[in-house]
């Protein structure tokens, strides 16, 4: 029960991915993934929060009394998120306005308190930091995949509004595949987010299935089963 560093990396990015496997933080994941730029913005903010909260929780893990550890973690996470929110307000104001309530709501992302409780509170600082970073990157990866999928289908662009994130040279990053008025509107609407998420989870399960060590004969329907993801804010 002491995962190696490789295990930590693989868990965060793939095997125990917060978005695809733990299904934590679905509320911001589904609400913000309408475009890729929003997804990257929220992904970076969440990754930073995870990294910092894991480090701080790991630092105080021998001092916080078990009875009050959860409120202490919540206070730490809330302080970090407040700091990140103020920083985004100052330096990425356009993106801050678009992401709106979902930046403060990072506090309630179950993935963060989950990692604090399940990993950071019983591991050393470097390991906790690595775990926070990898979980954050895993979450960001799902956000970006979902954002890219929905943006291409919904409005025919990729990286629209990139200047909000990268400054004025970001205008060059925007790709236009086809005129936006022919977009598949459903992809931008909430049901489209749920369907795309279900498809991503199905794809992940299918890939896992392809690389399974011992192939068993009776698995014909693995891709069909995960189209309804349990809701979990």
């Amino acid at each position, binding site marked *: 029960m002491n995962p190696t560093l490789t295990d930590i990396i693989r868990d965060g990015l793939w095997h125990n991915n917060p978005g695809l496997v733990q299904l934590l933080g679905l509320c911001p994941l589904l609400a913000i993934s309408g475009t890729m730029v929003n997804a990257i913005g929220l992904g970076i903010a969440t990754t930073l929060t995870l990294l910092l909260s894991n480090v701080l929780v790991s630092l105080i893990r021998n001092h916080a009394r078990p009875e009050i550890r959860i409120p202490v973690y919540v206070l730490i996470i809330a302080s970090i998120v407040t700091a990140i929110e103020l920083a985004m307000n100052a330096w990425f104001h356009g993106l801050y306005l678009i992401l709106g309530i979902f930046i403060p709501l990072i506090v309630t992302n179950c993935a963060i308190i989950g990692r604090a409780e399940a990993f950071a509170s019983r591991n050393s600082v470097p390991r906790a930091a690595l775990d926070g970073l990898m979980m954050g990157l895993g979450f960001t990866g799902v956000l970006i995949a979902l954002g890219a999928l929905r943006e291409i289908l919904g409005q025919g662009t990729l990286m629209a509004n990139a200047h909000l994130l990268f400054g004025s040279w970001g205008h060059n990053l925007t790709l236009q595949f086809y005129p936006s*008025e022919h977009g*598949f*509107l*459903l*992809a931008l*609407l909430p049901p489209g987010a749920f*369907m795309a998420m279900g498809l991503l989870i199905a794809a992940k399960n299918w890939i896992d299935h392809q690389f399974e060590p011992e192939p068993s004969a009776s698995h*014909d*329907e693995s891709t*069909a089963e995960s*189209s309804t993801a349990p809701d979990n804010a």
Partner: protein
Amino acid sequence: MRFRTESSPHMIPAHSVSGVMQQVLMALVPGTLAMTWFFGWGVLVNVLLGVLFAVAFEAAMVAARKRPVMPTLADNSAIVTGWLFALAIPPLAPFWVTLIGIAFAIIVAKHLYGGLGYNPFNPAMVGYVVVLVSFPREMALWPAPDTLPESPLTLLQTLQTVLTGSLPGAQEWDAVTRATPLDAMREGLVSGRTVGEITASPLFGSFTETGWEWIGNFFLLGGLYLLFRRIIHWHIPVAVILGVAVPAGFFWMLDPGSYASPAFHVFSGAVIIGAFFIATDPVSASTTPLGRILYGAGIGVLIFVIRTWGGYPDAVAFAVLLMNMVAPTLDHLTRPRIFGRTRGGPPPGGGHA
């Protein structure tokens, strides 16, 4: 002398799935022909495309699931789905609308849930709602029934329109299409006109526009045939129509200036075809007698509510999908009493169950 013995089953079920679907298809013919008469070749082209796509996707999905393809195709259910979808979309809609809608209907709504018999939602209506919310512009291209014939599109011109998405020659969409009666009523009421002024237009017959009335009548004919052949039960269609007519009549009597008559509501849009052909889908509808009545009434009331206060002019698809969600609960709550038992309890006299 030897008697030949056969193993069970000895009673052949009266309705096989493919037989039922064949009857439904036959019953759809008169309404489809009426639509073709009023809207032109586009209806038939769409039905053909819809059925082709539906069968192709069905075959592909069944093959991908490693099930026998031909027996599944022989149940005809994909044909019904494709046909109903094609009747729901505008007759001159470009072919990719049909392609995307059918893809969602067959792949997502039907096979991802496990195929025929396992789908909680009516596949044709899922496909229709997907294209309705995704492509509002294409889905508004309803030609005017009966007034088109200044220069009706020939079969070839219709094919060209459906395949390329643009009208042949110098024709403009605005010259060919017109607001449906439900659109006209909705726009008129929003802009402050009364129901009387809106229906005073010469295009309106006794209930709604003449073309739509006749289409409704012919679908009614098909529906009555299904009732006569015992393919469907009376509960759902009657409940749907009453569910629309009763609240519509109530508000109409309160204020006939701002609420359309119940007859207008019943004969406009998709209420008739919805009541007889869509709401009665044996898989996604409720199955107990009381459940069917509640299910149908729910659809009817929702149609009226969404039409009157909601964001879309017609609402049959939304109402059906919403009530599909409720159907399992309705079935559970309205289970008939088992013979010899009190409702929900052990048999009278407290015997062992």
